[in-house]
C-alpha cells in the first residue's frame, strides 16, 4: 500500500467476491480482503512506536472492531527492511521527557502506556486468529506487539530481544505478562535479566515461534496459514481462543505501575541519554 501524504486514504473497493477495505496512514496501512485483515507497518527506519504510531494503531483497532465480523484472520507485518519493529521511539521519549517537569513527564508516560496497552489488549483478544509475520529486528515494544498475536511466523533472520534492562527499565507494553503466559519462567528470566537477543531458531526451540521460514518468506507463510484458517467454523475458533488464551489483565496493570515507578529514576534518564546520544558502532550494548 503506497503512502503519499500524512492524511489517511480510505478506499472502499467492491469486487465480485465481496467488499474489501483499505486504509493508508503515515506509519501503517491496513487492508481487508477475502476475510484476511493485513496490517502493514511502514515507519522508517524500523517502525519505532512513538506518538504518531500509537495514534494510528488506535485508529486501526477501532477499524478492527468494525472489520472483524467479516474476517477470520489478522496478519501484522512490516514493510521496513531492518525488521518487524525496533520497539518504542526512545528518541521521542527522551526528548519529550527532558522538555517537561518530572511530574508532567511521568503522567505522559503513564498515559502512553495505558493507551498502548488498550491497543495491544484489543489485538490480543480479537475474535479471529492473529499472526505476526516477523523478520529482522523484533525488539522491545516490537517484540511485545508480536506477543499479542496468536501465532508468530518468523523468517530465519529475525532476532528477538527485550533490551529494556539496559536502560534501567522493564518492558512496559505488556511483554512480561505475555511472556509468562507463553513460556516457562526460567526462559522468561533468561530473556529479561540478560537482555540478550536471540535468533528465530532459538525462539522456535523455546516455543515462542510457530514456524521458521526462509529469509523474506514470513508474510507468504502467514498468508498460507490464514488461507487454511478460513476452513474452520468462526464461532468455534473464537470460543477456543477465549478458552486457551486468557489476557492477564491484573499483571498488565502491575507492569504499567512498575514501569512508571522505575521511569523516574536517574538510571533511566542516563540510559536514555546514552542511547540517544551514542554514536558508537554498538549503542545497544550496555
Amino acid at each position, binding site marked *: 500500500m503506497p503512502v503519499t501524504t500524512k492524511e489517511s486514504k480510505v478506499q472502499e473497493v467492491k469486487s465480485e467476491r465481496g467488499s474489501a477495505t483499505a486504509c493508508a496512514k503515515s506509519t501503517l496501512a491496513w487492508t481487508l480482503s477475502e476475510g484476511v485483515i493485513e496490517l502493514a507497518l511502514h515507519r522508517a527506519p*524500523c517502525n519505532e512506536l512513538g506518538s504518531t504510531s500509537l495514534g494510528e494503531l488506535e485508529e486501526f483497532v477501532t477499524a478492527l472492531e468494525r472489520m472483524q465480523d467479516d474476517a477470520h484472520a489478522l496478519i501484522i507485518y512490516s514493510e521496513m527492511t*531492518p*525488521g518487524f519493529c525496533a520497539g518504542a521511539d526512545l528518541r521521542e521519549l527522551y526528548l519529550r521527557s527532558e522538555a517537561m517537569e518530572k511530574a508532567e513527564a511521568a503522567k505522559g508516560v503513564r498515559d502512553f502506556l495505558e493507551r498502548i496497552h488498550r491497543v495491544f489488549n484489543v489485538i490480543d483478544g480479537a475474535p479471529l486468529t492473529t499472526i505476526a509475520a516477523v523478520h*529482522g*529486528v523484533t525488539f522491545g515494544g516490537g517484540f511485545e506487539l508480536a506477543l499479542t498475536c496468536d501465532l508468530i511466523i518468523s523468517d*530465519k*533472520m*529475525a*532476532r528477538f*530481544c527485550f533490551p529494556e534492562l539496559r536502560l534501567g527499565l522493564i518492558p512496559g507494553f505488556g511483554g512480561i505478562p505475555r511472556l509468562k503466559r507463553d513460556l516457562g519462567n526460567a526462559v522468561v528470566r533468561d530473556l529479561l535479566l*540478560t*537482555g*540478550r*537477543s*536471540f*535468533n*528465530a*531458531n*532459538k525462539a522456535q526451540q523455546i516455543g515462542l515461534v510457530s514456524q521458521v521460514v526462509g529469509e523474506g518468506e514470513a508474510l507468504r507463510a502467514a498468508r498460507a496459514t490464514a488461507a487454511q484458517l478460513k476452513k474452520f467454523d468462526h464461532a468455534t475458533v473464537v470460543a477456543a481462543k477465549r478458552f486457551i488464551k486468557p489476557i492477564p489483565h491484573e499483571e498488565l496493570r502491575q507492569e504499567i505501575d512498575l514501569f512508571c515507578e522505575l521511569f523516574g529514576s536517574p538510571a533511566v534518564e542516563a540510559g536514555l541519554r546514552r542511547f540517544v546520544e551514542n554514536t*558508537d*558502532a*554498538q*549503542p*545497544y*550494548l*550496555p
Partner: protein
Amino acid sequence: MQNAEQTLDEILTLAAAHFKVPCEKLSPDEDFFKTLGIDSLQTLDLLTKLENHFHVELPDYELQGVSDFRTLAGKIQARL
C-alpha cells in the same frame, strides 16, 4: 572438530557474502565496523547468519568490544 583457523576462514567467507564485498577486502585483524561501514543492527544480522551456520548460540553481550573477525572467530570456536 574444526580448528580456529577453519572457523575464521568460514566467518570471513560468510561475512564477505553477507555484506557483498570481495573476501580479499576483509582482514582478520582490522576493525570490521570501519572496513565494512556497518552499524550495530547489521552486526546482529551477521551474528544471526553465523549462529545459523555454526549451529551455536552466541549471546550478543559477548560481542561487546569485539571489532575484528579473529576475536569473533574465537568466540564462536569456544561454543563449537
